[in-house]
Every structure is written in C-alpha cells, then in structure tokens.
C-alpha cells in the first residue's frame, strides 16, 4: 500500500502549511511527579500495590526464600515455574526441596503451550523495577523469563529489589535509560491482578490474566 | 474567579436586558436595574437593543448572528461596563463575539465590547462588592446554576455568594446540580425528545428539594424547568436572582 502511504503523508504535509494551533506548555519541565525518600518510596509502593489487590511481602534481610516458601504452602501449589538462570532463581533451585516441583521455561512456547496453560500453578519472575507513585512492577521479559510467565499461570509472584523502586515511571525510564539501552521485545507494567469492571462498573478480578499478583520485596 | 476589568466602582453602566427578559421576565430586568442604582451606579439602557445574536450563532447561521450582533455593538460607545442579567447572553458577547467578528472590519470594536461585558451577579459581587440586608420572611430556595455561568464564564458561585448574605434564605441544591437542564436554546426545538427527558429529570430534582422558590441567573433555564413544573401543576415560582434580591432587600 505504498500509494496509501504517499497520499496520506502528502495530505498531512499539505495540511501543515496551514497555521495550526500550537499549545506551548511552560509546565513541560515542572516536577509534576512526587519525589520521595527511599523509605517513603517503599511505603508508597506497598500501599499502592495493596490498593490494587496485590499481596505484598516486605522481606526482612534474607528471608525472601522463607516468604516464598510460605506463599507456596499457603496455596498448596503443586508446581512453580521459575528460571534456574537468574540469580534468585538459582537460589530457589538450590533450595528445591522446600518448594513444589520446579519447572523451567526452557523451550519455546509452541513446544509446551498445552502444559503451560493447563498444568502450571504459579510463576515466579524478577522485576526490572517498581514504581512508588502508582504501585507498579516493571517486567522486562527475556530468554530466561519469557513474556507468558507473567500472563498465563493463575498466580504471578514477583521478586522486586527495594533499591529498584522509583518515584515514577518517568524516573524509572530516565534512570534506567530505556531509550538508549533499548527495550526488550515487550515491556510490561503490572499494577495488580487482571481485573474488569465491564459489568455494571463493578470490579471483578482474574478475568484473563493472573488471578493473583504477589510481590516479594527483597 | 474574579474577572473584573475595572479597578474601581464605575459611576455608570450600560444595561443589556436580553430578549428573553424583555418579553417574558421584564421584572427581572427592572429589579437588576434597581439593585445597580441603589449602589449608586447610574444605568444607561439603549432602547435600540434587541438580541445578542446567540440563537443564530448556536444554530450555525453565522451571517444572521453577525448582522444582529453588529447592530448591538454600536449601542455601547462609552468605555463603561456592560451589565447583562444572563450568563448565557453575557457568555455570547464575552466569549463568542471575538470568534464571530474575527477578521471583520469591526473586530476591534467587538473585542472592546466583549472586554467590558459583565454577567450581573459577577458584577454585583466582584465590582460592586454589594452588601445585602434581608428584609424578607424565612424562605427556602433551590438554586439552579446555569451551564453558562458555571462553565463558560466561571461565575457559578456568585449566585451563592449573594444568597448567603440573605439571612432568612435557606439555600438548597438539587441532586446532580451540575447537570444541564436541557434547554440549550434551539436544542429544545431541534431535539425536543432529549430536551424533554432532561427537563423532566431536572424538574423532578428541583421539586424534590421542597423549596419555596427556584432561583437562577438565567431565564432560559427558568422557563424550561418552570414550564415543566407548571405543566405538572407543581407550584414553585421561579425567580431570576435579581428579582429575588430586590424583592427581599428593598425598603
């Protein structure tokens, strides 16, 4: 459809000649986003995440494995999808006896779609960052922790390092330098479990994505 | 919002009565003039005034709107405020004359007039800083703030500022008070079914307050809401704010 492309762009270029309204905004660089201290950031993150029905555990010291263990036990999970190739994933595998059967997303999705859909109870992924202002985890899927891990299993457990909680999405983008370092195929911002208010504007959870979102701060 | 352009109390103002008040609610116009005069402001009422042109402007008949608006422009040569007892008509002159007269030879005059326009309640509050003493019996009034006052001119609060000075007046708000009453000028003619549905709902909300009077700064709304209540034999006299203020404060 190169003809379409050309005529659309031609029309738009012609339109540009006319004196179009341009709003100049002096607020462009105003600090619209709140700036919080490290502890406040964590508090805000926890409050906001809980407000969107996320279970948040603030793991003291090195207790995150215990907390993860508790989360699995409380739900009687029979298996857990987690990568052995991440630092914390390796630690989970090292303590495999404490956990339900560990599964690795080692093949492409085509090779195990039915199992992924039918036989995975929960998945654990790391987070690339967190956002205090909105209560959001930033997911940065890669070969070890592919996109579907945070989407298909009914329970999604996220391990987030407290030091990676930013004030705002803007700040996360700037500090992590998303534009220059380049993003993966898909970046996902998650704020709570899947939900819908499509019937009578009444909120219900777990519509298509995970029914539960659990964040463990490490 | 304080949108006064004059720095001190003017000695004289032009008064623009509006066609609706001229024909249907002259007492509102008289009351407004009396209030102004009591504040020591002399009032000039150009007898050649007719209509601001809004009905045609809102209907897309810009040539006709322009002709009518142009006939009004000439009536206000002195550099004094122009007070209008209707937010809708004041909105037309203040907010829409600049667009209507864009690129016309008399654009400058139109801008000049637009800059001098005041809606009555805003003028009483912001410019005259009027003080009222309530001489009336206790009464409850339900307030309908017109959309033009609320959203176009941002002077919706002036009506309350004035009413709060009247100690024997209890102010009531209808449910969903910010919702339009469904008048909309020619809208009521072009889309009568929707207009009727909106008017019925507004009238029901107004009636549900059990107030003794309905008050607004726009007679279009009063005619619409009042018309519904009359048809249903509901007795709740509608009053333009000027009329109520004058009624209750005159000696």
């Amino acid at each position, binding site marked *: 459809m190169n003809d379409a492309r050309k005529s659309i762009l031609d029309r*738009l270029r012609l339109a540009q000649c006319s004196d179009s309204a341009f709003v100049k905004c002096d607020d462009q660089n105003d600090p619209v986003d709140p700036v919080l201290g490290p502890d406040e950031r964590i508090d805000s993150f926890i409050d906001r995440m809980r407000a969107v029905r996320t279970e948040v555990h603030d793991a003291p010291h090195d207790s995150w494995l215990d907390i993860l263990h508790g989360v699995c036990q409380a739900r009687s999970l029979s298996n857990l999808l987690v990568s052995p190739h991440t630092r914390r994933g390796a630690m989970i595998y090292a303590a495999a006896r404490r956990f339900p059967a560990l599964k690795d997303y080692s093949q492409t999705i085509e090779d195990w779609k039915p199992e992924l859909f039918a036989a995975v109870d929960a998945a654990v992924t790391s987070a690339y960052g967190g956002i205090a202002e909105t209560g959001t985890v930033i997911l940065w899927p890669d070969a070890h922790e592919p996109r579907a891990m945070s989407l298909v299993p009914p329970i999604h457990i996220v391990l987030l390092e407290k030091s990676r909680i930013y004030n705002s999405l803007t700040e996360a*983008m700037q500090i992590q330098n998303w534009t220059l370092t380049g993003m993966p195929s898909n970046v996902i911002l998650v704020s709570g479990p899947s939900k*819908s208010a499509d019937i009578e504007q009444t909120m219900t959870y777990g519509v298509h994505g995970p029914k539960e979102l659990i964040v463990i701060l490490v | 919002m304080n949108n006064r352009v004059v720095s001190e109390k003017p000695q004289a103002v032009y008064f623009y009565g509006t066609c609706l008040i001229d024909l249907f609610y002259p007492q509102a116009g008289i009351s407004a003039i009396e209030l102004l005069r009591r504040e020591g402001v002399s009032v000039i009422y150009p007898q050649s*005034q007719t209509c601001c042109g809004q009905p045609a402007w809102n209907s*897309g008949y810009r040539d006709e709107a322009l002709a009518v608006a142009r006939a009004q422009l000439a009536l206000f040569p002195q550099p004094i405020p122009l007070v209008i007892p209707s937010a809708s008509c004041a909105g037309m002159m203040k907010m829409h004359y600049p667009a209507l007269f864009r690129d016309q030879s008399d654009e400058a005059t139109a801008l000049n007039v637009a800059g001098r326009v005041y809606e009555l309640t805003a003028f009483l509050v912001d410019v005259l800083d009027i003080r009222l003493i309530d001489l009336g019996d206790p009464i409850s009034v339900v307030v309908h703030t017109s959309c033009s006052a609320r959203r176009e001119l941002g002077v919706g609060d002036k009506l309350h500022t004035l009413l709060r000075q009247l100690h024997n007046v209890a102010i009531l708000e209808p449910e969903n008070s910010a919702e339009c009453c469904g008048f909309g000028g020619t809208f009521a003619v072009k889309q009568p079914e929707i*207009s009727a549905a909106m008017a019925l709902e507004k009238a029901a909300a107004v009636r549900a307050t059990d107030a003794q009077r309905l008050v607004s700064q726009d007679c279009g709304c009063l005619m619409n809401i009042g018309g519904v209540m009359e048809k249903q034999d509901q007795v709740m006299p509608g009053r333009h704010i000027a009329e109520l203020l004058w009624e209750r404060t005159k000696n």
Partner: protein
Amino acid sequence: MSTEFRSNVAHALKRDAVQTHLKTVVDRLRAHRQGALGNDAAFERLRNRCEAIRADAIRRLPDLLQQFESKAQRNGIQVHWAETTLQANQIVLDIMQRHRATFLVKGKSMVSEEMGVNTFLQSHGIGCLETDLGEFIVQLAGEKPAHIIVPAIHKNRREVAHLIHRHFPGLPYSEDIETLAQSVRHFMRDKFRSAPVGLTGVNFMVAETGTLCLVENEGNGRMCSTLPPVHIAVTGIEKVIARLEDLPPLLNLLTRSATGQPVTAYVNMINSPRRPGDKDGPDEVHLILLDNGRSRIAGDPELLETLHCIRCGACINHCPVYRQIGGHAYGTVIPGPIGAILEPQKQGLDAAAGELPQASTLCGACAEVCPVRIPIPAIINRLRWESVRKNRQSQNSRPVVPGAGSGRKSLEALIWKIWAWCCTHPRMYNRMTKLATRLRNRLPADMGAWTAVRKAPKPAQSTLHERLRKMDIDHE
C-alpha cells in the same frame, strides 16, 4: 422531521429500565473520576502538559509518523498504511490468508470497530472472537459497543447472565459478576491457546522508539499480542506521540479520566516481534495505520483538535445527552460529544451522523472534563455552521467538511433571515414584542414539542423596553 437519529432517540428514551441502568453506571463513572482527580493544581498541570504533547504531535504528524515507521521497521514491526477502512480490512485479510488462518482473537479496539473488521472477515469465512469481557458480551448479544471504554454499559448483570446462559447452556445460571467473568475466562483460555492470529488496537505509538503502547485491565490484550504467532495491531494515524517521556503523563491522565483508576492493571509496550533467543511472543507483528478522513481533518486549524483525543471517554460519561440516550442512539462507532464531532467529519454532514452536532445543549461539560482540553462545543458550533452554510466552497482553500451545506433548509434559513431583519430593525422588533405582550392570552397553548412536557411561556403584560421608558433612566 423524523431523522434516523431522532427515531433512535425516541426508541432509547422509551426503554425505561435501560435508561435507569445507564444513568446509574454513568453516575458511577463520574464519581470514580471525581475521586481520582486529587490535587487540583497538579491535575491542571498534568492537563497542560498532555494538551501540549498532543498538540505538538498532531502539528508534526507527518514527521512523527515517518520517524515512528522507520523505528518500528528497524525493530521488525511491519507497518502498513490504509487510506480507507476497506484497505485496512484487505490488509488484515491478506495476512490471514497468507497464514491460512481461519479465526482470530481480538482485543478491544475502537479502530477495528470503525473498520467493521468482524463483519468483513466473516464474509470471507474468517471468525473474529472478541475477548474483552464487555466486547464479548456485546458480541454475544449481536450488538455494537454502547461506549468506548465500557462497551456493555447498557446491560445489567441479569441481561448478561441470560446471555451467557443462552450461549453456554452447560453452565449453571448465575447473576454473580465474578462467576460470570470466570465462565468467560474459562471459555477464552482455549481460544487464546489455539488462535493463529491476535488483533488489537493501540493507545499510543511512540515515534522515538517505535513502541506500540496498549493499556488494559483484563490481560486479554496481552494474550492477543503475546500468544498467537501473528499479532496485528490497528490504529488511527493520530495516535502517535513524539517521545517515550511523553507516555507517563498521558497514561496517568488517560486512566484517571476514563475510569478514575490511578493506573490500569497492564501497560503493554510492544517493541518488536519475537527476537532470536526469545521463547515466546509473535513471530510477526503488523501495524496498520488507518487514515479514513483523519488527514483531511488535520488540514483545518480549528477542526484538527478533534485529533488530539486520547479516547478516555470522559466527555461521554459527563454528557447529559449521552446520559439520557445511551451510545446506540448515536448510530456511530464513537458516541457522545467526541463522536458528535468526529463522526460527522469522517462520514460527512450529509450522512446520518451529520445530525449529531445537534445532539448537544452546548452545556460545556465535555470540554470541562476533556483531559487534553479539546474545545468540543466550539467544534460543534463550527460543524453546525458547516452544515447550513451557503457557500460550499471553502475560504482560504481549506478542505471543507464533506457534506457542508447539506443541512440548509430553505424554510429554516428564511426564518433566521426574518429574525435577523427584526433584530436589526429595533422599531420592528419593538412592534413585534409589544404585539406579543398584547396577545399574551390568545397565544396558542400548544407549541408543539415544547409544550409536550411544558406549559407555553406567557409574554409579560408589557416589555422591559416599554417599562423602562417610563422610568427615569438614560436611554441614549
């Protein structure tokens, strides 16, 4: 007098139960937004910023589209351009046929509604399954969305329960919203797993990075864009923004304006198809850029603000007319105030949608809540003028709105002429108003539509002009 719109309205207003339900939900949406505004000054600053972002993007539309295209292509996204909805549908069909795909799963997309892609593909033997809960309900009912954010806004839980029960008789009847949603989840899972193609809309395209950004709560959009081997995204050319840093303020404003949420469950940023080493994600990502009149709208300095819209639906939720008649009465893909200005510009003032600029009292509620401050009442006013204007040729060689002048009726025009003549001849005006006051008791009580629910207004005993002549004031 009875137009398509008028008869739609009459039908809508007769359905008391639907109307009552609609008002309840609309009022709920308004309350949600009100609760989410927070600090006024900060919210206004955010609006300023977003207004500027959108204005800048539309001003630089061709440059940004080209920048976006080259970035997206470099990332491996296949970019297609379509001037018309037919072309866009044809592109979808070609992709489907190339993959021998017989059905697709769809995420919520108003542009796909604009294309009518479901009907088009069905006529070629290809099935489209709506996966958004609200859209699925509407599809089951054989209807169109009644709202751009809440497609099934007009249905209460009982109607939804009956629908689900009729289509899935195996399931026990339930009016519980959670149970209903879980039934749909269960049904959809198989479809997501097996679908060869997923189709979604796009909320923002980022020119700087070539990113497609999708905002949603349910996760079906992620499913449609992650699991099938082919993802087709469709969007209007106006959805582009310049920089990645423009995205956070827009997301913030969009979700709060739409449903009063501070944030949606998911923001899905798609940069490329599956890359070497990735274990999932579609092998192909296609983006179809639809014009369908938008580039013409961009040519008019006043009308182009229509393109600033970020489709939050706030104007719809706050429109007193929408609140009475609902979305279907508009007869267009996009209802409410934004639909009333957008659809006539796209379809022409001589089409059925040409009447929509009349569906407004000009109360200004839409402009008051529009996050990017589109002057909707001013554009309505402009379109009313375009509709009845005499000279169909544009001034300054600007493109005219299609169908300009088609609404001009000679009787109405004559009435306005006479009115203008009276109002420019004060003596005649005074004679007429005086006459009306003298005949006040003999005027007809039946004034057509006005007196259907109201008493006819009665002129006063004498006009203000007359009364003031007797007072000692200056008349100049």
